[in-house]
């Protein structure tokens, strides 16, 4: 605790950049994965390509992925963009799978009924399929959020400032408190993000919590 007291400014700086470096890929990954997942759900050929590409990309170890980014993007070796883009790609890779499952979970009877009541293609996608796929999308977003928050710290190895720096500095100076601070803060960010997602889910998808309660009563 004394170490933390003496280094509040340093830790706050790392905390703020850690928040940015994880929030941006989570949000971008979600937004990019939605249309891809929707297309993959509709066209089986796209689905095959997208799902296998996703699993190949997710297989790549993070430090290696960060390190090859400059060659692919033409960025500098210590550019935080390397981490942001690599983590966005990971997020898309995971999220697309959940998006495909989510869209597939919408019953075709509901889609027929919506079409019969006059929904066009776009209205159907945005106002019927998207909300009904919501619970599965939320589950995916929670997985992406936890792993992204944890993976950002690996970026410290390629010189990107974030809470992971507390690990690399702590191990060179033998400072236990510094590393523990890093672990606790990263776990705290993961918990806060997860709670935010769950609360947002309750607000945006009120029926999914309600449905669960009703089913619970039935039992």
């Amino acid at each position: 605790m004394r170490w933390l007291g003496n280094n509040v400014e340093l830790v706050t700086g790392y905390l703020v950049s850690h928040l940015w470096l994880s929030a941006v890929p989570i949000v971008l990954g979600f937004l990019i994965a939605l249309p891809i997942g929707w297309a993959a759900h509709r066209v089986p050929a796209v689905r095959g390509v997208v799902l296998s590409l996703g699993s190949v990309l997710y297989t790549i170890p993070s430090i290696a992925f960060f390190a090859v980014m400059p060659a692919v993007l033409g960025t500098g070796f210590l550019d935080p963009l390397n981490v942001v883009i690599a983590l966005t790609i990971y997020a898309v890779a995971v999220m697309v799978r959940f998006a495909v499952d989510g869209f597939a979970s919408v019953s075709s009877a509901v889609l027929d009924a919506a079409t019969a009541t006059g929904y066009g293609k776009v209205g159907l996608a945005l106002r019927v399929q998207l909300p009904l796929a919501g619970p599965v999308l939320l589950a995916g977003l929670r997985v992406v959020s936890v792993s992204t928050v944890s993976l950002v710290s690996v970026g410290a190895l390629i010189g990107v400032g974030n809470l992971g720096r507390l690990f690399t500095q702590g191990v060179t100076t033998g400072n236990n408190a510094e590393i523990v601070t890093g672990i606790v803060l990263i776990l705290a960010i993961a918990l806060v993000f997860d709670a935010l997602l769950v609360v947002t889910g309750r607000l945006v998808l009120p029926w999914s919590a309600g449905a669960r309660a009703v089913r619970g009563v039935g039992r």
Partner: protein
Amino acid sequence: MSVASEAWDWLTDDANWSGPAGIPVRTLEHLEYTALTLVIATAIAIPLGLYIGHTGRFRVVGVGLTGALRALPTLGVVTIVSLHTGIDLTAALVALVLIAIPPLLAGAYAGLESVDPATVDAARALGMTHWQVLWRVEVPLALPLLIGGFRSATLQVIATATIAAQVPGPGGLGRFILDGLDLDDYPRVMGGAVLVIALALVVDLTFAALQRLSARRRVSTPERV
């Protein structure tokens, strides 16, 4: 483009393929750590996972444990363990084992849970003992998910063994990336990254093939009967 071609030059330079710090030795070290980790983690996680899956006891503990261990930043685990074990292979191994346990545990109990309860009841009705039900019915039927657990554990360990090179003791392919970064030798960083990616992809493809084989056996069994 020049970064990529320099990395290619590094990868095809004969000097990098020999000696105690050459690519073959580092690759073998990486595989050695991975194998050793998996043996230890399996000895811990698989009996626990099978127990949870077979009896349904301590399920909440298992689920909570796997969730919590997953949220832990791996780099944090590696560095904190190294402060307490000293700089040698032990630090990396303890951290790697901790990281390999959640997917193995989840694969084992989720695998057993995926077995149709009617099948288990039928096996009991035939007079099978608990052990027979476990080994002859549940484990064979859970095999694809069990192998899935090994697959994600192995990939996780290969990835983490790379960042374990942050602690000066261990070798492995992470040495190229992290030493390269320290020396501003970017071709070495890129070359090392390409090697790690290749290793992960080869291992993943092998597991994918294994998983497909085990699933096919499972599907074809009823036909043979």
